[in-house]
Every structure is written in structure tokens, then in C-alpha cells.
């Protein structure tokens, strides 16, 4: 038997409303469909059980918090049955509009110890613009409920570059969120994904994208979050620490699950449209809940595509994602995994990156500079491998 896989991602593909910017797979909530999904998910987890020994679990979506108390009980029972009661980091994504005291308590007692809440903005007008179902007040209330239920590790998700958002609104959101004192923040720029309403509005000229403004927003995100006591450990992620740290340490409250992704760790996934990566093979589930359920009920997993990454692709991916983190590319870890020293593979590229002030070659690491973190795509593209 191979080494057990240490991470698990579970996709809950339901939302009560589809947001204007969202390109993730989700369906509008239909009770009988949700019930069938819960059963199928448990079925798939039982199949995966023997291969897993999770140290991190992440429930994403969709809106996992939309599941009813009863449905959550079913899922939690199933997971406890596999011996997964005490997981070092177990995250569930919540929408501020769907958090209740009972649900929060149930999750906490069931072993969930981290909540990631999609706040996006604290501006009522922008929340409406994005098609979010929650209000500014619900963010405060939900946060209080979660704290009350004993959650000591909470992430808040923010968005910047939203059409209509100016620097003042952004600063107000940042200041309000910082005041809540969550352990973790992630903030990302609105991406105009194909086939989202926002994308079509932009193409139709409903608004202009002001790159200058977005750049300023990113700068104040870093400045203000740092001043508020957060450490940037990845391009879009910030966390608090317990003690003072060097700029290259991973902060205490960093998301271990995501770090595992970025270090090209193996993880299994369950649920429609979710992707897993195990031993150099990336597999994706079908992006359709009915077909997924059919697949699991007939003894399979509903996997529809499989990509085997050849070593140069794995290496390029590893380096590109490592350079998105403050830690940078760890020469020793890389060499242990691939048998090559990164300077053998990319000596020239690393010199070029260094000469542009984007990273520094150290004894054991290739470290991105603060500038390099801002140009993570430019840096990453130097490492990826082009197959003909």
C-alpha cells in the first residue's frame, strides 16, 4: 500500500443564488438533489477512506453552509465512521447569510476547527452588485456566532477591483475587517472569467477596468494588512502569528490545506467538479451533480478526466507555485523530490529573475522579493514547461 494521502477536498455544489463573478461549478438548491448528493458523497468517501489519512480537510463550494443540520449530521457521522474526528485543520466555507448558531455548534462539535467566510465586501451597494445574498450586518452577526461557537481560526475572503469600488470603499472594508481580528485574510482581484455575468457586462462596455486603481488597491491591501498585524505568506493570503517571525516563516494561522496544494502535495477530492492530485496524476470529477451521483452509485467516482503530469511539468508547476509564497523555492525539498537541484534546471532563468529584482538566490532557497510577489505570474512563467 502507498503512503496514505494527507489531504482531502470536498466540493459542495449548491448555492441559493449564483454570484455575478463566479465560474465555479454549482447548482441552485433542490432538496431531493441535495439529499442524493449527500448520500453519494458519503459513498465516495467510503471508497477513498483506506487511501486517506487526512491532516487537512477542506469543504469548499458552492456554499457548504447551505446544507441543513440533518445533512451535515449525515456527513459528519460518515467521516467519524472513518476515524476522522480529530483533524489538525478542518475547514468549512460559509456564506455569512447561511450561518446559524446550531449549525456552527454542530460543525464545531463534529471536529471542524476552521471557518472560511466569503465576505467579499462590506459595502452594501457592492454586495448587491456582485449578486451576494448577504448583508454587511450578517457578516458581523455570523462572525459573532462563529466565535461564540468556539471557532478560533477564521478566514475572511475579500475581493478588490469590483466595478464601482473606489479606494475609499476598499479602505473602509479593509479597516472594518481588520477590526474583526480574524486569524486569516485572503483577498483577490475580481477575475473576469468567461461566461460569468460580470464578464459579459464588461465585454458589453458596462464598465471599464481601471488597472491603476486596482494596483493601488493591492498596495493598500498589503500596507494596511501588514500594519494590522497580518503576514503575507502568499500572493493573496495573509495570516496572524503568535510570536514575531522572520519574513520567510509561514505564519502560525496560515492555511495548511492551501499550502499543501502550493507545495504540490498529494490530495484526494470528492464531489462534483472537484480536482485531486495524487502521485503526479490529476483527476477531475464530472461537473454535474446527477451524473456524479450516478457514477458513485454504480460503484465509481464520477471521474471524467485524468492528466498525468510528466516530471518536467511537475517540476515547473512546483517552482511556479512555490514562488507565489514568501518562503520561495526550497532547494532541499525540491532535490529530495526530483533528484535535481533547481539551479541545474533553471540557472539562467533564476539569474534573469534576480537581475530584475524579483527574487534573490540564497543558500537554500530562491526567495521572491516583495516586488517579485507582485509579479508572481512573470516569475512563474519562467519555470513552467512548454510541451510542443
Amino acid at each position: 500500500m502507498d503512503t496514505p494521502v494527507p489531504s482531502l477536498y470536498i466540493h459542495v455544489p449548491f448555492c441559493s443564488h449564483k454570484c455575478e463573478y463566479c465560474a465555479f461549478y454549482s447548482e441552485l438548491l433542490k432538496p431531493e438533489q441535495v439529499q442524493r448528493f449527500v448520500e453519494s458523497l458519503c459513498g465516495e468517501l467510503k471508497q477513498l477512506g483506506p487511501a486517506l489519512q487526512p491532516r487537512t480537510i477542506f469543504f469548499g463550494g458552492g456554499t457548504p453552509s447551505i446544507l441543513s443540520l440533518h445533512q451535515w449530521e449525515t456527513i459528519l457521522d460518515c467521516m467519524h465512521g472513518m476515524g476522522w474526528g480529530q483533524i489538525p485543520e478542518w475547514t468549512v466555507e460559509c456564506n455569512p447569510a447561511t450561518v446559524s448558531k446550531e449549525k456552527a455548534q454542530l460543525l464545531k462539535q463534529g471536529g471542524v476547527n476552521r471557518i472560511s467566510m466569503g465576505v467579499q465586501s462590506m459595502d452594501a451597494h457592492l454586495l448587491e452588485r456582485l449578486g451576494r445574498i448577504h448583508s454587511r450586518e450578517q457578516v458581523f452577526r455570523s462572525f459573532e456566532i462563529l466565535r461564540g461557537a468556539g471557532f478560533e481560526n477564521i478566514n475572511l475572503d475579500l475581493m478588490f477591483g469590483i466595478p464601482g469600488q473606489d479606494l475609499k470603499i476598499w479602505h473602509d472594508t479593509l479597516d472594518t475587517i481588520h477590526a474583526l481580528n480574524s486569524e486569516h485574510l485572503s483577498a483577490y482581484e475580481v477575475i473576469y472569467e468567461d461566461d460569468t455575468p460580470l464578464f459579459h457586462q464588461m465585454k458589453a462596455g458596462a464598465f471599464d477596468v481601471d488597472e491603476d486603481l486596482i494596483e493601488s488597491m493591492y498596495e493598500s491591501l498589503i500596507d494596511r494588512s501588514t500594519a494590522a498585524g497580518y503576514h503575507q505568506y502568499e500572493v493573496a493570503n495573509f495570516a496572524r502569528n503568535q510570536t514575531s517571525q522572520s519574513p520567510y516563516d509561514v505564519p502560525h494561522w496560515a492555511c495548511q490545506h492551501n499550502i499543501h496544494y502550493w507545495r504540490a502535495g498529494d490530495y484526494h477530492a470528492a464531489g462534483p467538479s472537484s480536482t485531486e492530485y495524487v502521485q503526479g496524476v490529476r483527476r477531475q470529477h464530472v461537473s454535474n451533480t446527477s451524473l456524479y451521483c450516478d457514477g458513485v452509485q454504480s460503484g465509481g467516482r464520477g471521474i471524467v478526466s485524468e492528466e498525468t503530469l510528466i516530471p518536467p511539468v511537475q517540476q515547473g508547476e512546483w517552482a511556479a507555485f512555490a514562488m507565489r509564497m514568501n518562503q520561495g523555492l526550497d532547494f532541499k525539498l525540491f532535490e529530495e523530490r526530483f533528484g535535481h537541484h533547481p539551479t541545474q534546471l533553471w540557472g539562467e532563468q533564476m539569474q534573469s529573475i534576480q537581475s530584475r529584482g524579483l527574487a534573490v538566490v540564497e543558500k537554500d532557497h530562491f526567495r521572491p522579493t516583495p516586488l517579485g510577489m507582485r509579479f508572481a505570474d512573470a516569475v512563474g512563467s519562467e519555470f513552467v514547461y512548454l510541451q510542443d
Partner: protein
Amino acid sequence: MDPDLIRNFSIIAHIDHGKTTLSDRLLNLTGTISDRDMEAQLLDSMDLEKERGITIKAHPVTMYYNAKDGKRYELNLIDTPGHVDFAYEVSRSMSACEGALLIIDAAQGVEAQTVANLHLAMKQNLTIIPVINKIDLPHADLEQALVQLEDILAIPREEAIPASAKNGIGIEEILEAIVQRVPPPKPTGAPSTQALLFDSYYDTYRGVVTHVRVFNGALKAGSPVKLLHSGKNVEVKEVGSFNPKPYKRDELTAGETGYFTANIKSPLDIKVGDTLTDAKHPSPPLPGFQEIHPMVYSGIYPINTADYEHLKANLAKLQLNDAAFVYQQETSVALGFGFRCGFLGLLHLEIIQERLRREFEMDIIATYPSVVYQVTMTDGKVEEIDNPAHLPATNHIETIEEPMVKSFIICPNDYIGDMMALVAEKRGLLVHTETLDGSRVMLTCRIPLGEILIDFHDRIKSLTRGYGSMDYEHDGYEASDMVKLDMLVNGESVDAFSCIVHRSKAESRGRSLAAKLGEVIPRQQFQVAIQAAIGGKIVARETVRALRKDVTAKCYGGDITRKRKLLEKQKEGKKRMKSVGSVNIPQEAFVQVLKS
């Protein structure tokens, strides 16, 4: 054939005044082509020619006409390229004739091209037979056309023949006039054969087919002949005429027109205007030969660099039928591998580019065209410069002379002011103004060729709502205050945008180029300065502000493959970019500026 029974003539006309229709009608009436073939028959063969109403390549056609005097005459219609870009070819074709039909549209009157072509015909001492065409149109004004004929062209009105080529009116009269007024060819008195080469084309099966007019002696298969200017000796393989399809004849005698083939493989070996003579007993050359030189140069590049070889092959194909078109390899920092191409003029340049795009379906980009400057160096040497990159340093230059043209602009009275302003803007000098009739004037001006290359003709058309017309003839060189304008990106010159311009225009051109480049050069991680420089002096500057970050996207498990693919695409894209110093610029950006 008895030279007294031969008449050689050409037809000159403005676009759309009915040259092709009249030619067809003459062929039809003389029985050269049947009614049935009329529809399918057109002297112009390329689509582009039909569309633009111009003739680029045409064959001489031989027809036989039984005149009222009871004699049977051989009439040779020698078609001319009809545009002054090809002035030399036109003049050679005309020198194969003794007369010319001058067609004027009864509804539109004299146009600029009529004037330019008539000047060429008069220089050749041709007998002019004016034909007022389209007299049956509702807007026809025969009287006005006759007045213009006398006033503008100084041709007596009695000589004009009213006609309608479309409806067959006046055709017989025209044929009679050709017989009676055009003088028969006269032998030159030279000791042996003399024939003028006035055109050639490439035939896949027969090789180079050359159009000739025999002036003295005779030309037949098997004769060893000498091409006097190119110094080549060849043996004639076949002689013949066109009706309008080529047909073999035993010989071409003095005064006759037709074609010959020989073992000539490359069209470049045939020089238009050359004299063919007996190899053993050569006669002196016929007058008027000139080496032809391109007047306008432009770089042509494949948009997709992989198309380079393909472009090279297609340029060679074009050259087979167009020896006046020249090209050689060149490399540009911005555009990669391409060709420096030389053209006779503006229309020639447009035609070649259009043919590459349409007939050969090539995706190409052309650099800003340049004329040929005569640069006198401080040491007294004179150099011809057709590429700004080759212009010597200022301290070695004594003077720069630019080619001039004499331009004829005909427009309605209402637009005189606009035309004069345009001419002034183009650094032109109004030489002469003439009233054509109650409503139109003809302006004659002297303008630098370099100024009319880009939008002169289009501007005239749009300023006059399509009523204006323009043509020109070359008119020597003139010293001018020309400077080299360079576009610099972070201090590095971008060759595709360098140009030689008049000092008075350098700054505004530099400013507009800098602004355009500023729009298309993508932002980099550092600030990019775009400067326009004359010599060492910066005359315009634009700044592309530095990017402060990349896209900052969420990037979780399910996004990794997608993100990697984005990075791969970015890397792929960077490979296709051109580096100017440390600035990476996609070729499309350059193309966009050149197109605008």
C-alpha cells in the same frame, strides 16, 4: 505586309471613360472577335485591373479592317498601362505607335489622368484623334467637352469624333480616322533589323514572351538576334501576333507589332525599351532607352514569421510578370525577416501589396513607404538612399535632394480652397490654375513625391466628395531640408518606424507616432520611455507607466492546472515578442501602429 497598309495606335483615357469598351467594339467591328465572344472577351485580365479600372498588363492586338478606300489595313492596337507610375512603360508602348485615340467622357469631361497621359503621347509626337465618348448618356454635354478639348488640351474641336462605344455609335468613323490620320510606319533606314521591346510576360510553357514592334527589316523564327542594351545574343524561336489570343506568324515585318519567344528564362533579362537587332550585322539602338529604377520603397513582412519562405516564393512569382518590381531580403528588429521592395510609384506599390493579399492570400504588413533621396556627401559623392536606416550621419551630408512630381488636380470650383490648403500642407507649390468649364478647375502643382505617397489621393477624393481627380508625372529632384526621425523605446531605436521627413513635419509626425506606440506597447515592470528623436534631439516623448503588479487571482487546488496553463500561455507569448533593449513588445503592437 506593305507598311503603307499598317497603322499602329494606342488608346489613352481616364479611368471609366470607356477605353476597354471601345477596344472591344473595335475588335468586334473588324471581325477580330465575334459577337458571341464579346461578353467573355476583355483585354484586361486581372480581377484587380477590372475592379480599379486600370490596365496593368495588356497585349497588343492585331486586327484587319477593310476601309472605304477599298484597301485592307492591318491595325495594331497597342494597349498601355494607363497610369503614370508606369510612365516609362507607357512611353515605350507609345513609341511603338504613330497615333493615339484620346477618349473623353462626354458627361465628365477632361480628367487629371487624361492630361497626364496626353502629355506623354505628345512627347512621343503621336497623332492624336480625340473621341468624345458616351454622347448618348442623359448627362452628356458634347459642347462642354469640345470646349475643354480646345481650351485645356489645345486640340481643335473639328478633329473630335462623337461616339458611344457602348451602343456602337461612331465606331466606323474612328476606324476611318485611324486609317486616314495616323501616318503609316516609316523604315528607319538602318542597315539591318531593328525592333523595340515594349513589354514582356512570363508563360509557364513558353518562358518569357516579349512584345515587339518591328521598325526596320523583319523578325522570324531561327534568326540570331542581339539585345543591344542587355548585350545578350539569342535565337528567335517563334514570332506571332495577338487577335487577342496569340497566334504564330511566319515573320513580323517593318511596321508590324506582335511577340517573339527565345530561350530567355528570366523576365529580368528583358529590359523594356531595349532594341533587338541582327546579331551579325547590328544596327544602332532605337532612341529613348532608360534603365528603370524604382521610385518608392517599402518593407514587406509576413505577419506570421513562419510565412517568410512562402512570401519569398510569391514575390518571385510576381516578379516574373513585373520586372519593374524589385526586392531584397532585410531584417527588422520589430518585424523580423522580410523584404525591402522597390516600386515604380504609389499605385504599383498598392497593386503588389493587394495581389499578395488577395491572389496569394498572404498576411503581410508594409512599413512606411520611402522615396529615393539623392544625398550629396561632404566629400562630393552622391548616394541614392531608399532606406532611412542607410542615411549617413548628418555631419557627412552636404545636401539631400528629394524627388518632385508635377501633379494635376481637377476639381469642382467649390473645392479650390480645400485643394490649395491640401497642396500647401503637402509642401506643394501651385504653379498654374486653369478654368475647365463653368464648374471645374485644373490646378497644376509641384509637390514632393514623398508627400503624396500616403493619403494625398484619398484626401482629394474625400475633400471633394469624390468629384476630384489627381494624376502626376515625375519632375526631377530638388534640395530639401530633410531629416531622419527615429523612434526610441527606452533609448533603443525601433527600425520599422524610422523615416526621412521634412524638418517642418518631423516633430508632429514624431509626436503622433510616439502617441500611437504609447497606446500599444504593453505596460512592463518598469517605466518605458518612447521618444521621437531628430539627430540627437528629442522632439516628443510618451511614457508607458510601470506595472505595479500581475493579476492577483485566487489559486486553490482546482485552479492549479488552469493557472499553470495561463503561465504556459504567457511564456509562449513572450517567445513571440520582440525585444527592444529590455522591453518586450508583441509584433502585433508594431503591426497595429503601421496599419493606422
